[in-house]
């Protein structure tokens, strides 16, 4: 066991997770807004933001899927020590972590059932950067429209078609997060041509 397995959690778990949750909630309630989130220092390749989200939301009751690019011994040991979350495959997870390419294909994740649409996965997507530009977003939580540097557009459009079923996304980069719930309508950035 490496020394940094035991470190990197919230200095004060109750206060740290309260602050982190407010950032996550603001992000999920106002899609497209970018929130700061800090307090966690997980091992690479996890970003501090991803670490904080995992510490805030995961425990022994939440199966987690680590996509191939974050599925290393250091991350597994850190996650197990700090949250106790069982590691599972994509089809049984409540939370999935990884970069966009590593998380694909989206069709394998649980999208909930018509009677329990909340029994669906939340994907925590590590992004190289987050910027308020790119794809335009409308829907609940957005006053007129918002823009966010999404990895692609088509996947979110087909996810929206599943409503009220579907996946919810949290994007992380460094110590910042944004989110995209299943209700958000995404359209290609102005002037961009659709690649099919």
């Amino acid at each position: 066991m490496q020394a940094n397995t035991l470190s990197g959690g919230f200095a004060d778990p109750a206060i740290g997770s309260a602050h982190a949750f407010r950032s996550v909630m603001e992000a999920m309630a106002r899609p497209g807004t970018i929130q700061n989130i800090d307090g966690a220092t997980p091992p690479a390749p996890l970003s501090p933001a991803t670490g904080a989200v995992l510490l805030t939301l995961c425990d022994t009751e939440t199966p987690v899927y680590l996509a191939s690019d974050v599925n290393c011994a250091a991350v597994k040991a850190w996650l197990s020590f700090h949250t106790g979350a069982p590691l599972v495959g994509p089809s049984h997870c409540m939370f999935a972590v990884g970069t966009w390419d590593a998380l694909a294909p989206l069709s394998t994740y649980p999208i909930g059932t018509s009677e329990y649409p909340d029994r669906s996965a939340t994907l925590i997507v590590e992004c190289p950067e987050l910027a308020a530009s790119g794809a335009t977003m409308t829907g609940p939580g957005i006053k007129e429209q918002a823009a966010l540097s999404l990895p692609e557009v088509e996947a979110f459009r087909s996810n929206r078609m599943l409503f009220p079923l579907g996946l919810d996304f949290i994007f992380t980069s460094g110590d910042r997060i944004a989110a995209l719930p299943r209700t958000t309508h995404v359209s290609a950035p102005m002037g961009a041509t659709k690649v099919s």
Partner: protein
Amino acid sequence: MNDYNFAYLDEQTKRMIRRAILKGLAIPGYQVPFASREMPMPYGWGTGGVQVSAAVLTPEDTFKVIDQGADDTTNAVSIRTFFQRTAGVATTTATRDATVIQTRHRIPEEPLTEGQILVYQVPIPEPLRFLEPRESETRKMHSLEEYGLMHVKLYEDISRHGHIATSYAYPVKVEGRYVMDPSPIPKFDNPKLGEMAAIQLFGAGREQRIYALPPYSQAVSLDFEDHPFEASKADHPCGMCGAVDSYLDELIVDDAGRRMFVCSDTDYCEARQAAGHKGKDAA
């Protein structure tokens, strides 16, 4: 601060509630089941709202609690003191100074802003419950978007009373999908539910449900083309501050049955009186 964990609840419980809140925000109007805990107050006293508040509060928040609009009733005072003691948060009665407002059965008169969170205490979260007592059936009705029964109920109101007589807990359709019980707020408050800048969270402790309205979402009161929804209030000005646009409580003030109408939102009324507005019953 004393020996309680921050905001009373243990961390695992808060994580469970926080996950339910996030799914509630992602599926507006859908009631997310959660493992409601026993709280140090009886069911019916806002245990759902208290658990949601405990999960969202941070030490920097300023907390306000209203009960039917009033800051100074037993329920409001005891919940405010509860979080003062267990979370060490600042408290206020001024709507504009609060970051988290827990409410029983009212939406403040003053428009809420983007930095604020409104937490409702909900007794019966299921709008279809009095029409269909079986949870297995109402769940199916929501999944099939089968809300005909609710329209029958409103229609029966019209056939019996000549108008839709439902005056509180008036059902709304959220984002064109889920029919939602806005908790027993007067229907006067229904138009404020939609397009609100603040985050709205609903907690039902005994019934173990959490649901939410993200900011700027649609919440349309159910009605008929020939009987459109109407937000109603007592047709009087406030006796204390003279406001004509606020929701009023009717008080019987003496044995002869003399009555007086006053704002149910005490903060709104007091602020207006402090600004020099005076109603006909003001001393």
